[in-house]
């Protein structure tokens, strides 16, 4: 246990340094459209929480409240769907039949220039025929069953 008497007396230098650090944690430096460096306040997001950005219907917006960074993809999709249905997300129109089944969550941990966790819900983008071909190649026909072509019966 740390004894309070063991703490160093704050000096002007350390006090100024700690104030600067506090300022750095709450200020983001960004370029505006005129390429001027501007300082904007960072969102007030606790350490284990994250900002959730949702892309849907050609629009993008952030959930107003931070969410737990450790939430499962399923929980995040459910939260996002409910929020979009209710029209709770600035920048996104309310959509009653919203469906995030085939969306994925990207997770970005905090870093020096963005001092809070970020989550992004976006559409998935894989293309694949492994469910048709069984993951193997037959140049003349599609693989019907894994291991051999269902047309020419060429084996793997």
């Amino acid at each position, binding site marked *: 246990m740390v004894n309070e008497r063991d703490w160093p007396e704050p000096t002007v230098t350390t006090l100024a340094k700690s104030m600067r650090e506090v300022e750095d944690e709450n200020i983001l430096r960004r370029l505006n459209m005129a390429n001027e460096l501007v300082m904007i306040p960072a969102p007030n997001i606790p350490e284990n929480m994250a900002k959730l950005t949702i892309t*849907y*219907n*050609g629009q993008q917006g952030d959930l107003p409240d931070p969410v737990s960074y450790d939430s499962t993809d399923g929980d995040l999709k459910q939260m996002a769907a409910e929020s979009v249905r209710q029209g709770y997300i600035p920048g996104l129109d309310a959509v009653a039949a919203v469906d995030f089944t085939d969306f994925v969550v990207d997770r970005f941990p905090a870093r020096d220039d963005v001092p809070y966790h970020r989550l992004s819900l976006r*559409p*998935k*983008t894989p293309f*694949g025929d492994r469910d048709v071909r069984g993951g193997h190649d037959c140049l003349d026909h599609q693989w019907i069953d894994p291991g051999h072509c269902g047309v020419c019966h060429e084996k793997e």
Partner: protein
Amino acid sequence: MIEAAMVFDLQGYPLYWRGPDGCGFDTIEDSRTLWEVLWENRCRLGGVAHTHPWKGKTSPSHTDVTTFAAVEAGIGRRLLWPIVTMTHVNYFVHANWWSAADRHPDSQGPLDYRELTEVWGWHNNTHWLSNFLGLRQLSGG
């Protein structure tokens, strides 16, 4: 043989090529980079062509149609989804492609993608057809 993809604009000019990722996959894995290309170009995006590297006609897999539907939901409009084999090109669109308001009477839901029986305009132009050579080469053909 591996799959490859090409993002194209509303006139059929390539915006982005995606070949093998070097990770040993023969299919196109989920990629934030690909999604960012689609999102950044959403105003002029025409669709995404990808290969099924064999000969003959083809149809989209379940992975394909669920990706088609998810990307269209994200972008907010319908796109064109050509699938290129070593010998054929088949064009797929959602049954409600023409307009959301003019719903196809037989539409079977969000994964109801159908082949276009005829193509028109720039789809027969040399610049568009030459894209298929590039895709087939990327696929190892």
